[in-house]
């Protein structure tokens, strides 16, 4: 059981961080909101399970890329809301460009003919 979760976290680690940072670019959000946003924006393709999401949030918080505030929700509940920090914004840019490089590189490998004809 445990093994399964840990494997998944490893698999998603780099990309999940990117997705979370990107989601928070649109404004502060709580954990559940982040998971729903990722699901919605991916057209229901990406399901982030809680066992990956919360460790990632806490790790990003520790790295000071995101910060957390406690707010009171409409039904008088304390809610932990995450927001992007300045360092997080920088990190997001870095990770985005890295992701784009990787994605270009992978599609280059997958479609060698296309690249040649484009050039």
């Amino acid at each position: 059981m445990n093994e399964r979760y840990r494997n998944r976290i490893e698999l998603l680690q780099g990309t999940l961080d990117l997705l979370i940072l990107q989601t928070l670019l649109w404004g502060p959000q709580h954990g559940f909101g982040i998971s729903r946003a990722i699901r919605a924006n991916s057209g229901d393709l990406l399901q982030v399970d809680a066992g990956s999401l919360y460790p990632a949030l806490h790790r990003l918080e520790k790295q000071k890329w995101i910060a957390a505030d406690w707010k009171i929700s409409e039904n008088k509940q304390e809610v932990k809301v995450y927001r992007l920090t300045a360092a997080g914004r920088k990190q997001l840019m870095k990770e985005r460009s890295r992701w784009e490089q990787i994605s270009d590189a992978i599609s280059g490998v997958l479609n060698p003919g296309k690249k040649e004809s484009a050039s």
Partner: protein
Amino acid sequence: MKLWWHRSKREKELEKEIQHHLQMAAKEREERGAAAPEAAAGARREFGNVGLVKEVTRDTWGWRWLENLYEDLRYGVRVLRQNPGFTAAAILAIALGVGINVGIFSVLNGLALRLLPVPRAEQLLSVDQVFHGDINRNVHGEQSMFSYSEYLDYRDHNHVFTGLAATEPFLEATLGGPQLHPLMGALTSCNYFDVLNERAAQGRTFVDTDCAASGQNNVVVISDELWRGTFATDPSLVGKQIILDQTPFTVIGVMPAGFTGTEPVASAFWAPVTMQKTLDAGRDRLGDSNMSWLAVLGRVRPGVTLEQVRADLSVIAARIDESHPGRQTTLAIARAAFFGRPEEHSFLIPAASIVLAAFGLVLLIACSNVSSLLLARASARHKEIALRQAMGASRWRLVRQLLTESVLLSALGGTLGSLFAFWSFAGVLQLVMSKLPKSFPTLALNVAPDFRVLGFALALTLMTGIVFGLVPALRTSSLDLNLALKGDGTRAVLGKRNGRFLRNAFVATQVAVCMILLLAAGLLLRGLYHAQTVNPGFEMKGLATTYFNLRGLNYDESSAAAFVGRLRQRVAALPGVTEVAQAECGPLSSDRSGDRFFVAGRSEPVDIEYNHVSPEYFSAVGIPVMRGRGFGPNDWKDGSAIIVTESTARRLWPGQEPLGKTLRSRMTGGLLGPEYAVVGVARDAQVSHLGESDTMYLYFPGGSPGDSLRSYVLVRFSGSYSDLAAGLRGIAQSLDAEVPVDVKKMEDNLEIWRAPSRIATALSAALAGLALLLALIGVYGMVSYSVSRSVREIGIRMALGANTSEVMRQVLQQAMRPVVIGGLIGVAGSAAVSWVLSSMLFGLSAHDPVAFLFVPIFLLIVAVLASYVPARRATRVDPVVALRCE
């Protein structure tokens, strides 16, 4: 505290965060039209294992392992407190096992690992010579020691020591005064105390001028113990004269309490090395450049490495070798400690390994006992373990938890045992030493714990905890959840066959180890009995011995010969005395002489022990001369006649007529000495080593005046020993009241031989007793456990008509299988290693059939008894109750 508060706050926050997530998810489902309870359940299902999510999230916080450890410890303490009986038994077993091991290690540490008890001892190096090739060396002490000229060479030409000191340890001298008093002291170079960094408590230590001329400086430094004891803390002793070996010495200093020299045997006085000829009259070691007699210690210059020392000194060694063609010298350089000489190491290391192995075996039994206890308890804990696993604990996490518990157990037991060892072992050692005969010197051992002992205790404790905990932990954590939660714990935890196999393996180990220790004790005991009843090859009953050492008593060769001659004459006239003889070495005494001899037709010299004996020796001691003749009264003048023992003749000249054969002794410088011719062959006798009659041995004719300075007078008598002893003492007193008389029955000499083996026997019997007790508990525990586990099975069997004796037989049969297998392994193991004891068996075979028959039978009976008690419970099973209860 702050950290803890911080953590519990984060813990609450995480809880809130997750609850919020679940609520939102449920709300989402409700909005889509699900009913409230279904929505909540769905949200939970989607979320997954809440406990696990929390755990992996907490993992990102860092310091996780510390928190885990704290939790495990807290949990472990709780579990241990819930089972006080189990906990106490386990802690006691471990305390016992670890305690005796830490104790024996602290003794070994005091013997050979501790640095010398002087300031900044880590700078002190001991230097020893190891000779190779053509060695022809006079030895007084150990061969690795130095001659005086060699010492001076190293002292004056090295570049690595701030000072290099030499000492002749174990010098016996007689302290004069109203009562003669034998002392153990040392001769030292005059920089000895400066090199050691030791100052006198009163007066001064030596200065260079004290060693300026040979035999001129009668000064002495004495120990605090001698000052307090013999001189009753005389405050004006410094400056006064005391008499050592009939020579006045001026006391120049008293050392502080606790300084006993640089050898394990405490020194009472120190005299300049240049006084050697005065304190050992008639022998000149100072002038003999080929004599090994000085131990050498140096204080290394700051910043100089061991390699540099080795390189620097080996230049000197090579230069000295030039004057000894065919000989190469290498140097053994080590941090100075007791028993540091190569010869001593070669004895101490095997002895220490045997002792440590024996003690380690007891710890092994204790460990496997605790292991099987843990294993048995594991089946009682299967539901708890299953629950923890279902809640998301990983197997590694469970193993860690279980290991924490076992290490906690071993830490408690180890601490208890170590504390007990620290507290008691000095006393135990005292007790053991007080059981040694008086002729054994007392050792100045420091068994107090130091960092080495503490490190050993810690390492042993941790290792113990892991060793006995690992197997049960791995077993326990690999259970089948379904089976465990359903309730049939036994099968779930251990997969029945496997579990029984492990428990049986533990019992077999215990029995095997116990068998080895019991057999060792049995063999030693038999050896001791053998030593009491052995026929030494000579007539021990009705023989009295007395030793005269006239050397320190104002005697010269001719007056000594006159004294002993008159004494022998008058003793021979005592009623009941049939023979009086004189010998250099008394039978089975601690005196022994030996040399290398050349035999015609052999290129290699042979080592042969010898004795100088008067003509009456053979009839007095009761050794018949089988061929040729005995000694005549004038044989000593010519000195060429020798008598060899039968086995010596057989080994030197197999199948030939030994009479008339010749030997040559080897003289200093490789020259051949005088030739000796065999005139007689005496029967083999164990006069040198008890239990060994086939050592190479020969007799020289005694009688020259020099022989009487130190000699044994042997008296064969019929009638009462006490009358004889009184008569002998009276005669000696009337001849010279100053001479101390020490009359002994021959049988008393056996005591010197038996004392070490008696101690070894007592020690191994105590160890074997502990091992037996632990193994007994192990067998008992195993049988009662398996009986309690198979109550239902037994019940069914009895319901089907089996009678009690059949059930009993079956239970016993099952219980005895691992016992017999373990026992056989133990017997085989003992047979393979029992030769290490042969030096203490006095000629008894190391595979003595009596010991190898009775010890296993004894152990088997004990094991049957240990199984019988719990097995009887099996026969009392009421089938109705048994079938209903599980």
